[in-house]
């Protein structure tokens, strides 16, 4: 048994002082906004709740209420996180109800859904929540029964003392347990003793979703609430000059029209304060349709801005200076500049051995350049936020991935104290990194402050798609040197993008090749970018895995065996010391996918591509089977192997992998946003191609490596490698390598 010191009673497990000794009736309404009931009517609600710690309440009838601390956008953390608590608490999952925690950093720690870090960061803390509560219940029973605590056992929400035959359900001991100090140390279960973790549990919100209950930010309602929309510049590189608001104010249902500035002068932006359009026009009215009509009639003058620099606080807490150039940029111009970099030297990020000499001596050099365009996130729920600013008091309800990152900005822009901001986190209709950037919350709050009313800000789809925070456009040039015996003697990657480099210098195949060179470059732009499902990896994986496929072919080796040999070298005798992967686990997913896909067996009429990648602490490998029907690629099957350590909720994890695979195939085939004179050329789903039902894989088969390693994330890792699997299968299917995303472009017909 592992004994883990808890940080109890200080920050993480805060008890409300008012509750310190007794029970209380909590006044939450089950059907309001964002709460859920897994077994709703079946569960009788208790008369009284007892708060054991800030995450956990136990009802007098034994019903358990667990706060899901992190916001949800589809990873199913509202199910899997409470599972961690329930496992150690030792309760019947059917008696658990899940509530969404509001933003509260002292009570709920780092409420961050992103970077595939949710489960990983909560793995021990949430189990300690359950384990410490269980210990408090056992202590309460020991005192009541006058027996040693060691003799009090638990089973699915019931306390037992075997020798005396006494037993009580948790609800009966909850009042006493709530008075017991939180223990300083707790024992966590061993993996082999898990009863709940590792079993598939249905989404606790499933019933609410399929019956259309209001759960999302856009569904938020409040008495007297007005609707607000915004108008931002039509092009990157432009800013507000003037608005003609008088005419608009007279339109039916319109209350007010004004401009807002999201940031105070000299405000040092933080990393997630990205916003291409800090000065925008707001329209406030009674109903969405009326505001939409007024928005269409709005006459705004915009003008190009001058180049400027801004200070941005980075993750290390230091300040970066960011150059924002003037000008109206176009994709044709971007592509031409990127193309020049094929022949220029970048900044060296890593160098092992003597790559220059090895390339000079090479019998054969393979050089290929890969590129990918900007992408819009296109969360199905457009950006929105509810805000009610009343003097110093601020109430927010919004879909947001990382509430803590916007609180300081919000407080500064509104001129209020952070302590006066109350923030509810609604369910998000998609996130994918987009909702880590909470500028729309600041906008909603500023609009509410100025309009002196509770407002719900809604972006139209067009506002959403043209707002920026895109996945950048990238390019990577790879070179491989082969000697006369077809041995890989040197490897060179040079990657860059607008406006950031996607390079990970220390990732595979770094560490597996004696002579290795990694270079990078970037070009400033006024088009804003942001995290997009596995940032940078989502391009690098596809480029690298396509190139390795081509090298394996040139060498005359099986695509999987070639990778495994490199990984074996990295394991046995790694080059360099800071290789950013575990070669054994990396090889593990390739071996598993090889076995499960029957890699070596001939697949009739199917063309197969393999790809593997490590990012966000999880390993993923795919084998994709493709056929061509009437000139169109059909993805018949994807076999997938993942090593994310212990899988908390297997079916939900499979769902994540299936989604990442499908989303990745869609972006590989169709995803593209281009610009002309600063204007995004796609504004809605009539022109921005998203994968649809008929294009989705016919079959997806997901396998997990079985081990007892602490869990890592699932939201991002299966996404990047699918781009490589698509490219490699397309080559097998058509005989033509693809280097430029989107692979189908506007043609969408092959051959």
């Amino acid at each position, binding site marked *: 048994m592992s004994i883990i010191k808890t940080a109890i009673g200080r920050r993480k497990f805060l008890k409300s002082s008012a509750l310190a000794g007794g029970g209380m009736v909590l006044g939450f309404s089950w059907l309001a906004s964002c709460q859920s009931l897994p077994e709703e009517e079946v569960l009788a609600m208790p008369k009284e709740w007892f708060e054991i710690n800030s995450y956990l309440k136990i009802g007098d009838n034994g019903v358990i209420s667990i706060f899901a601390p992190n916001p949800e956008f589809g990873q199913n953390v509202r199910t899997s996180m409470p599972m961690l608590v329930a496992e150690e608490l030792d309760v019947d999952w059917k008696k658990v109800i899940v509530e969404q925690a509001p933003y509260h950093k002292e009570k709920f720690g780092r409420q961050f859904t992103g970077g595939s870090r949710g489960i990983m960061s909560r793995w021990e803390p949430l189990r300690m929540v359950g384990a410490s509560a269980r210990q408090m219940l056992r202590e309460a029973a020991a005192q009541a029964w006058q027996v040693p605590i060691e003799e009090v056992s638990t089973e699915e929400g019931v306390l037992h003392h075997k020798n005396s035959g006494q037993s009580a359900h948790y609800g009966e001991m909850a009042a006493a347990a709530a008075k017991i100090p939180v223990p300083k140390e707790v024992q966590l279960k061993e993996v082999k003793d898990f009863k709940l973790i590792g079993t598939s549990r249905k*989404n606790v919100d499933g019933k609410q979703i399929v019956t259309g209950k*209001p759960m999302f930010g856009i569904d938020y309602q409040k008495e007297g609430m007005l609707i607000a929309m915004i108008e931002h510049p039509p092009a990157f590189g432009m800013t507000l000059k003037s608005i003609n608001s008088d005419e608009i104010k007279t339109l039916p249902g319109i209350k007010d029209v004004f401009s807002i500035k999201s940031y105070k002068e000299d405000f040092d932006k933080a990393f997630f304060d990205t916003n291409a359009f800090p000065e925008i026009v707001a329209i406030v009215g009674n109903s969405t349709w009326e505001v939409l009509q007024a928005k269409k009639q709005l006459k705004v003058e915009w003008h190009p801005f001058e180049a400027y620099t801004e200070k941005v606080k980075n993750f290390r807490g230091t300040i970066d200076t960011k150059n924002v150039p003037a000008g109206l940029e176009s994709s044709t111009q971007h592509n031409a500049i990127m193309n020049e970099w094929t022949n220029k030297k970048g900044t060296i990020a890593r160098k092992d051995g003597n790559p220059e000499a090895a390339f000079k001596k090479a019998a054969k050099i393979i050089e290929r350049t890969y590129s990918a365009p900007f992408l819009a996130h296109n969360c199905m729920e457009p950006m929105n936020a509810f805000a009610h600013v009343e003097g110093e008091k601020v109430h927010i309800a919004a879909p947001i991935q990382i509430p803590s990152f916007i609180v300081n900005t919000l407080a500064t822009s509104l001129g209020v104290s952070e302590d006066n901001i109350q923030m509810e986190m609604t369910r998000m209709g998609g*996130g994918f990194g987009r909702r880590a950037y909470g500028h729309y919350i600041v906008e909603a709050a500023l609009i509410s402050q100025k309009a002196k009313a509770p407002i719900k800000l809604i972006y139209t789809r067009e506002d959403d798609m043209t707002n920026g925070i895109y996945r950048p456009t990238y390019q990577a040039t790879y070179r491989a040197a082969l000697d006369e015996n077809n041995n890989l003697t040197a490897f060179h990657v040079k990657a860059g993008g607008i406006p950031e480099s996607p390079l990970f210098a220390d990732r595979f195949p770094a560490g597996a090749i004696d002579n290795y060179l990694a270079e990078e470059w970037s070009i400033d732009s006024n088009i804003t970018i942001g995290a997009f499902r596995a940032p940078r990896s989502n391009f690098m994986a596809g480029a690298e895995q396509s190139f390795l496929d081509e090298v394996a072919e040139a060498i005359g080796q099986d695509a999987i065996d070639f990778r495994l040999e490199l990984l074996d070298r990295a394991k046995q005798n790694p080059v360099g010391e800071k290789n950013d992967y575990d070669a054994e686990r990396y090889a593990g997913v390739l071996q598993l996918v090889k076995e499960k896909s029957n890699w070596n067996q001939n697949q009739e009429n199917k063309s197969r591509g393999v790809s593997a990648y490590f990012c966000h602490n999880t390993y993923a490998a795919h084998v994709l089977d493709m056929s061509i029907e009437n000139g169109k690629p059909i993805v018949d099957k994807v076999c997938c192997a993942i090593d994310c350590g212990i899988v908390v909720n297997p079916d939900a994890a499979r769902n994540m992998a299936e989604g990442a695979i499908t989303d990745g195939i869609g972006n590989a085939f169709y995803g593209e946003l281009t610009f002309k004179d600063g204007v995004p050329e796609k504004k809605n789903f009539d022109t921005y191609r998203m994968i*649809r*039902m008929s294009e989705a894989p016919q079959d997806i088969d997901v396998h997990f490596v079985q081990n007892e390693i602490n869990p890592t994330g699932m939201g991002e890792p299966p996404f990047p490698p699918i781009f490589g699997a698509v490219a490699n299968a397309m080559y097998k299917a058509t005989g033509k390598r693809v280097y430029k995303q989107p692979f189908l472009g506007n043609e969408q017909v092959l051959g």
Partner: protein
Amino acid sequence: MATFSLNINGKDHQVELDPNTPILWVLRDHLNMLGTKYGCGIAQCGACTIHLDGIAMRSCILPVSAIKDKKITTIEGLSENGNHPVQQAWLEHDVPQCGYCQAGQIMSAAALLKDNPNPTDKEIDAAMNGNICRCGTYSRIKKAIKTASEIG
């Protein structure tokens, strides 16, 4: 402004508003029925799918004045207790991820099965192609439609 009588999920409602107002916003803003979602406003994503006399329609481009005496069904009225075969199948396969598009997906699937209780894969593709899911739950949706067809 004009007054309209609407039959929604078997109940009559009266609303007074601009005749051009799409049913989506009548439902969401005026009748507090929030299950039908806004996704694109141009009938390209299917998040706003409702039934009009049993036929799947995109409510974001359907003006209130065009409804006349046709009966509207929304996700809230698809079944009394959330137990329509499609809803049951969705739960069985635990389809949703973020969940935002799912009301529209379910409404499209229910309309499909009403017309064609045993659709082929190609028929499912055709009927569901207008509903976008960025989370990529299509393979589960397809499985759930087949299960619903069996429950049906």
